[in-house]
Each structure stands twice: as C-alpha cells, then as structure tokens.
C-alpha cells in the first residue's frame, strides 16, 4: 500500500517587517494630502455706511481719479477709453508712479464701478489688475529706494512705502438698471 505522505505545512506567517514602512507611507500620505485650505483672496476695506441725507459731496480733481467702469457686456472703460482687462495694470502703473512724490491728498484714487448685471468674475479680474498694479509699483519703489523686495523691508520702511503709495480703491455703488 502506498503511504500517502501528509504534506508538511510550512509555518504560516505574514512578514511584518515591512508593516512599519507601509504604515509610514500611509502616515506620510495623510500628512501631505490634508491640505488645510488657506484663505487667500483680495482684501478690501469698505467705507462706513452713511445715510444718503448725511453724505457730503467732496469734489475730487479729475487728474486724481482713475475711473474704471465695467458694464454687463464685459466692456471696460478706463477714463472714457475702452480697454481690455489685462491692459488695466500697465495703464494704472504709470499713473500711480507719477504720484509717488505728491502729497497725501493728491494720490491716485481708483474708482471701480460696475452695473448690477456685471459678472462677478470680471469684477474680480479688474480688481486683481488694480491690486497688481499697486503691488508692482510698491515693489519697484522698494527695490529702487531700499534695494530690497517689498517683503524684506523693515516695519518703518514698509510704513514709508505704504505712505508713499497708498492703495486707494473706491468701490462705487452700482447704478440701478433701468427697468
């Protein structure tokens, strides 16, 4: 009779030495992939709310004011000239730069005005251009005067830059669309 040999079972073991590596990989994956969503955006300070009857009209000279109008079709008007949104930055930069050495009450005011039906994205793009123009002028000024980038300035220097080139953006109230 043939003897059926019982196959000897090998010791059943899971190799655990690489377990730590796997766990570390998982840990790293979680550490890297959990993007804590950062709050980035365009900061702005709104003017105080004043009742219409209490509002005081302050005349502003024409050369101080950069009038930016965006209508509902997406056309952009800067001081009466039709321009494209990416052109806003370069247009404004020259005007901001020309007013660096002017006194405080003569600095440029950028007024952004939209229709009620204007697309929000367009408004943000235009505002982005204005902000970008200010940022670039500030950066150029910082490099030419202090020889450093804007972010490397000391507090006093930063204050001086802010005083020389204040970001004044006026968000005009949109006109009512005639019904």
């Amino acid at each position, binding site marked *: 009779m043939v003897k059926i040999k019982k196959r000897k079972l090998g010791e059943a073991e899971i190799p655990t030495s690489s377990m730590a590596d796997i766990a570390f990989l998982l840990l790293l994956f979680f550490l890297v992939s959990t993007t804590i969503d950062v709050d980035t*955006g*365009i900061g*702005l300070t709104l003017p105080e709310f004043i009742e219409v009857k209490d509002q005081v009209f302050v005349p502003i000279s024409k050369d101080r004011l950069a009038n930016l109008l965006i209508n509902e079709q997406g056309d952009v008007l800067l001081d009466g000239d039709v321009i494209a949104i990416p052109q806003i930055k370069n247009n404004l930069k020259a005007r901001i730069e020309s007013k660096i050495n002017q006194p405080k009450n003569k600095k440029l005011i950028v007024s952004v005005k939209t229709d009620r039906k204007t697309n929000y994205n367009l408004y943000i793009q235009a505002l982005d251009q204005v*902000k970008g123009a200010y*940022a670039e002028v500030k950066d150029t000024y910082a490099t030419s005067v202090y020889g450093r980038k804007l972010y490397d300035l000391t507090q006093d220097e930063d204050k001086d830059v802010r005083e020389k080139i204040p970001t004044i953006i006026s968000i005009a109230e949109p006109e009512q669309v005639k019904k």
Partner: protein
Amino acid sequence: MKFTKKRASTKQEIPTASMPDIVFMLLLFFMVTTTLREHDVLVSFKLPDAKAIEKIENKRLVSYLWVGGDGRIQIDDSLVKLNEIQSIMYGKRVSLPNIIVSLRIDRNSDMGVVTDIQQELRKASCLRINYSTYLKL
C-alpha cells in the same frame, strides 16, 4: 592574568515588532486630531482666480459668507435672506470687533447681489472684507 571582556548576555536588538503599532497610533492621532472646523456648505460655488492676492493672516478673525451660483446666501451653517445679514453680522462684530468677512462668491454671480451684501455689511459696520479667490497659475 587573562581578562575576559564582559558581554551582556541579552540580545542587542531593538524589538521592532511593535513598531507598526506605534506608527499606526501616530497615524490615528493625526487622522483624528486634524478635524478642521468645517462648515457644511449648502450652496454650490466656484471661486474666481486672481493673481494679486493676499493671505488672511489671522484665521480667528475670519467669518465666512457664501453665495452660490443660484444666488442663495449662507452664513455659518444656515441659509439666510439678504435682509437678515445685517443683524447676524452685527452680532458677530460685537463679539469680534475687527472681524474679517471672507466672501466666497460664485464666479458667475451678478454684481447686484454682491453689492447688496456689501451694503448690508456696511450697515453692520463689518468693513474688512476679503473676496475669496484661488491663485491664478
């Protein structure tokens, strides 16, 4: 005289068998503790992109306001009407005087609703705002 070097009789090995457990514990710790205080966003929105953006340096001051593509407005965890914004935001401002309102507005919204919200915020004297945008690459 013959000197024999004294050797420890125990094995000179670090037991690594419990290493995965330790690492898993770490992993669990991270997974559990990183519960970001998230709001349940009830509106659908897609933020616009911009280049000249800044980071809100103090997250504690931020309060969010969402506007969806359909024009619905959400503050904290509930949908609100336009005329309710003023009282809600005023209450927030009283408890947190230098509050920053982060406006998370859908990119296809009309400026009309944005302006209405801004007017309400002005009435509530929440003047520091931030148009939330992604970084344009």
